[in-house]
């Protein structure tokens, strides 16, 4: 016998049942069979409706044994609850000749069967295995279940509750998992170059002089535009490394590393950064930072970045060699802009200089491409008036 049809339930959730009591009728190849219960307790939840054909071994219902607290009405099916309830019965006990012999489960039904790989993935994605619903995953939890749960969690929680210490520790965990995975899996290579920022600084000052305070551009804006344009020239840095292969992205969705008040950071996307005007970029960045700080990010913004930009120059550092956020393949850093001696046509002059850095995935690109990217970025920043 491989499957049976659940003809009728003889109990309902909330009913008290005794060991040996017939709780359901199942139609098998050998005719209708009474399904007995092997524990005394209260029916917590019916998982298989009558009329459904299910394979032998399928979980039919959850039972709460004496002394266990009643679970919440909505989230009753969670494995967290399941950890304290017994499977009412499995169909393997339905054969008449075996009636009376408790069904032997090879593994205790209270312990969810999570594949080792799924367990590892859950840790990486911050999915609480105990929060999964048995009704959705079935008795065995695989990688696919974890991936679905992670996606559902992303959709279900578009708004992140700010200032929650629990949330902070979740974020710490997520950062830890992503960064550890990055350093474990991604062979990073690092490049740095000094860029003369005099032209772009001067242009920005004169531009901002003409602008009302609410319309002023931050120095990072022309840099964002320049690097989005430079990425179009070097597509090997813009995209994802998935399943052993690089998939470049036609769109440049710039992940902006934004630190959170009180610790942690996120890197949500400014979509199509290469196609937007500086004013649009400024408006988008303002909107994004405001929502990051207010805790109202959208899941698409979290998932879409094709590359990350980190602008630690604000904190006064000279350069930043970033850790790539997988499955992206590059992170670009910009240090502070400060006056430095610069040799121009044989003379030492003071120039505004910033160090631009690239950490890239050597599986997807080589140093040559990385160098080309930084050179292009430097060139674009010499002609700020063209960065529109």
């Amino acid at each position, binding site marked *: 016998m491989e499957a049976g049809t659940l003809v009728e339930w003889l109990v309902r959730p909330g009913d008290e049942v005794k060991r040996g009591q017939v709780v359901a009728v199942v139609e098998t190849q050998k005719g209708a069979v009474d399904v007995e219960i092997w524990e005394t307790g209260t029916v917590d939840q019916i998982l298989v409706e009558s009329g459904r054909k299910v394979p032998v071994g399928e979980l039919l219902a959850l039972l709460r044994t004496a002394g266990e607290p009643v679970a919440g009405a909505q989230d009753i099916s969670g494995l967290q609850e399941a950890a304290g309830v017994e499977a009412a019965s499995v169909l393997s006990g339905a054969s008449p000749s075996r009636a009376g012999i408790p069904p032997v489960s090879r593994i205790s039904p209270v312990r969810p069967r999570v594949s080792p790989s799924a367990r590892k993935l859950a840790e990486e994605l911050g999915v609480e295995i105990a929060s999964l619903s048995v009704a959705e995953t079935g008795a065995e939890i695989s990688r696919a279940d974890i991936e679905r749960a992670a996606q559902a969690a992303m959709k279900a929680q578009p708004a992140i509750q700010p200032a929650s210490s629990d949330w902070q520790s979740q974020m710490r965990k997520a950062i830890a998992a992503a960064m550890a995975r990055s350093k474990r899996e991604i062979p990073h290579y690092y490049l740095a170059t000094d860029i003369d920022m005099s032209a772009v600084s001067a242009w920005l*000052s004169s531009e901002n*002089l003409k602008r009302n*305070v*609410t319309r*002023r551009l*931050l120095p990072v804006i022309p840099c964002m535009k320049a690097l989005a344009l430079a990425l179009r020239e070097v597509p090997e840095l813009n995209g994802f490394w998935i399943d052993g292969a690089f998939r470049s992205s036609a769109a440049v969705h710039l992940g902006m590393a934004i630190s959170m008040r009180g610790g942690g950071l996120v890197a949500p996307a400014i979509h199509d950064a290469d196609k937007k005007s500086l004013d649009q970029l400024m408006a988008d960045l*303002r909107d994004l930072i405001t929502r990051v700080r207010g805790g109202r990010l959208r899941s698409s913004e979290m998932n879409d970045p094709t590359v990350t930009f980190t602008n630690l120059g*604000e*904190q006064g550092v000279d350069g930043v060699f970033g850790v790539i956020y997988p499955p992206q393949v590059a992170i670009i850093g910009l240090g502070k802009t400060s006056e430095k001696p610069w040799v121009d046509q044989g003379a030492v002059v003071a120039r505004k200089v910033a160090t631009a850095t690239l950490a890239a995935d050597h599986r997807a690109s080589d140093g040559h491409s990385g160098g080309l990217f930084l050179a292009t970025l430097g060139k674009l920043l010499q002609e700020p008036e063209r960065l529109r």
Partner: protein
Amino acid sequence: MTPRSREEIRQAIVDALGGIAPEIDPGSIAADLPLREQIDMDSFDFLNLIIRVHEILGIDIPEQDYAKLVTLNGAVEYLARRCAAQQ
């Protein structure tokens, strides 16, 4: 525009800071130390501060004057002068 007392200006700045960094205690701000050292602010936060002050006091602060708003006292002084000049 009604004249503003220094106390009103100070309160406007502190209110603006509260919107940017809700976790800070206004009483703990040292008036003569740079704000950005006491409150974790980046250039975006600073720009927001300038914009909020602009909204409250109606004063447009040019970029080259940003350096005058480094400390709370400095900002109050600068803004008081600008308010007076607008009268």
